[in-house]
């Protein structure tokens, strides 16, 4: 008897729960099931993933380029070429002394012959008797700040020590800036294309949803609903779809950044991440990449809502 009573009460509770859930679902004027939600969510997730990936790649290149430029700006090189009748070691010492006395210079290192030869090894190989060749010698000058008087140093070197020149690596820095700028511009272009493709997908999805729900739109019209009300009903659905898809795609991209930066790179390169960082900086996407992915998710969600709203307005105007 007690079991039967309990079973009855459970049935009543289940029915109430079902009615509550049913009431919540039926309360939507545009049924969620009537919109091709899963396909559009997937498209939005993929677009959000690609956009986040592009943003991550752009920040990676920009950070690496910034590191490279910073490194380049921290050093200049004095090249002392052998000149007939002059002792190159003396000239090196004079040039180094001049550099040390220059404002903004933190340290000066004269590369010896062995270091000089090791720099040439990649091009000439080892075991060659090149010590008798009149090779230029290098002095590495490290700068303490941006206010180093490099123009003055270059002028003094040229005036007082024939065959010397100062290379501030400006050509390299300029090329790096150009390359980084082009990469960022390409990334922004890709982002723009991804957003445009997303918008077009949403336009088609909204038109499909409106066609599938034309009977509801018609009823809403004849009971006196304004276009804005109908647009809001569709917009609400598409905002949720956009949020779901956007967050899924951006989340996947953020996870990928984390896996590559914190697991794959240490795993594949072990302790030799130093050589990788010469090319790609730290090879980890910084906070801007992660927050950017989150921002992309919300931008895509808002864009989804806005695009669907405008499409509904446009369709209603066409059908009037």
């Amino acid at each position, binding site marked *: 008897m007690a079991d039967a009573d309990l079973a009855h009460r459970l049935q009543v509770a289940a029915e109430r729960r079902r*009615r509550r859930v049913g*009431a919540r*679902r*039926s*309360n*939507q*004027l545009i*049924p969620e099931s009537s919109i091709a939600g899963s396909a559009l969510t997937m498209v939005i997730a993929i677009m959000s993933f690609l956009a986040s990936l592009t943003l991550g790649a752009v920040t990676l290149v920009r950070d690496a380029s910034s590191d490279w430029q910073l490194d380049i700006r921290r050093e200049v090189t004095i090249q002392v070429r052998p000149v007939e009748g002059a002792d190159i070691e003396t000239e090196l010492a004079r040039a180094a002394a001049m550099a040390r006395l220059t404002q903004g210079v933190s340290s000066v290192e004269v590369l010896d012959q062995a270091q000089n030869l090791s720099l040439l090894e990649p091009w000439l190989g080892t075991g060659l008797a090149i010590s008798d060749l009149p090779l230029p010698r290098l002095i590495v000058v490290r700068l303490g700040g941006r206010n180093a008087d490099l123009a003055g140093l270059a002028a003094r070197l040229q005036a007082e020590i024939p065959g010397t020149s100062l290379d501030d690596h400006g050509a390299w820095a300029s090329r790096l800036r150009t390359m980084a700028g082009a990469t960022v511009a390409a990334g922004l272009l890709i982002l723009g294309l991804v957003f445009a493709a997303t918008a077009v997908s949403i336009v088609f999805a909204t038109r499909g949803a409106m066609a599938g729900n034309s*009977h*509801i739109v*018609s*009823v*809403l*019209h*004849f*009971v*006196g*609903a*304004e*276009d804005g*009300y109908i647009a809001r009903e569709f917009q609400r659905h598409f905002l949720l779809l956009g949020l779901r898809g956007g967050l899924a795609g951006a989340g996947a991209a953020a996870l990928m950044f984390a896996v590559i930066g914190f697991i794959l790179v240490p795993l594949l390169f072990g302790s030799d991440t130093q050589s990788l960082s010469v090319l790609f900086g730290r090879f980890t996407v910084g906070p801007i990449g992660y927050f950017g992915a989150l921002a992309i998710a919300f931008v895509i969600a808002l864009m989804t809502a806005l695009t669907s709203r405008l499409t509904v307005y446009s369709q209603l*105007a066409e059908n*009037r």
Partner: protein
Amino acid sequence: MQQRHQQEAGDLIRFENVGLRYGVGPEVLRDINFNIAPQSFQFLTGPSGAGKTTLIRLLFMSLRPTRGLVTVFGREISTLTAADYAPFRRRIGVVFQDFRLLDHLTTFENVALPLRVIGREESSYRADVVELLRWVGLGDQINVHPPIMSGGEKQRAAIARALITQPEMLLADEPTGNVDPPLARRLMRLFIELNRLGTAVLIATHDINLMNQFDARRLVLEDGRLTIYG
């Protein structure tokens, strides 16, 4: 509502030399002239395909005439902007032959729809909707969805939806077409009661027997032309 009607000195709707054609086809309605006065009651009749539904669509502003003037609540409809349609439609209740209830909403939600779309809170209209549903005999069908309702129940739900905002005019397209004679008479009594309360009523029907039971003006459509009796 009476006070609102007194403010409208003229006709609710006036048609002057109205003609309508679809695309480049022949005119389906020709030289239509008539008016609907406040608190009036009339039948719109004629053989099937005579253009009754088209005329109702014109009355409800879901079609525009290809010639002539249609004046609704004192405004000629060619002067209406997109934003004007919704407030004008709220003053007209429509009952369609195919009911046009939303299957995913309950009877209560369907009937409350005209109030919901103008932003009213459910708490402000719940009692009114329930009372109206009881009045049309659907007091025990409040939480039922249309797919499991009978034709007569759907018809009454559609009528309740058309009446919930106390419109100045009710247009009903074959409202008794899907119900048995006793229910048809019951629905007609409902419309007459509504008319006594101040709403102008136009009922499109081809049921001569039904019309013969009531003394009301008849608008007869035949070959696209309208003749008025009474």
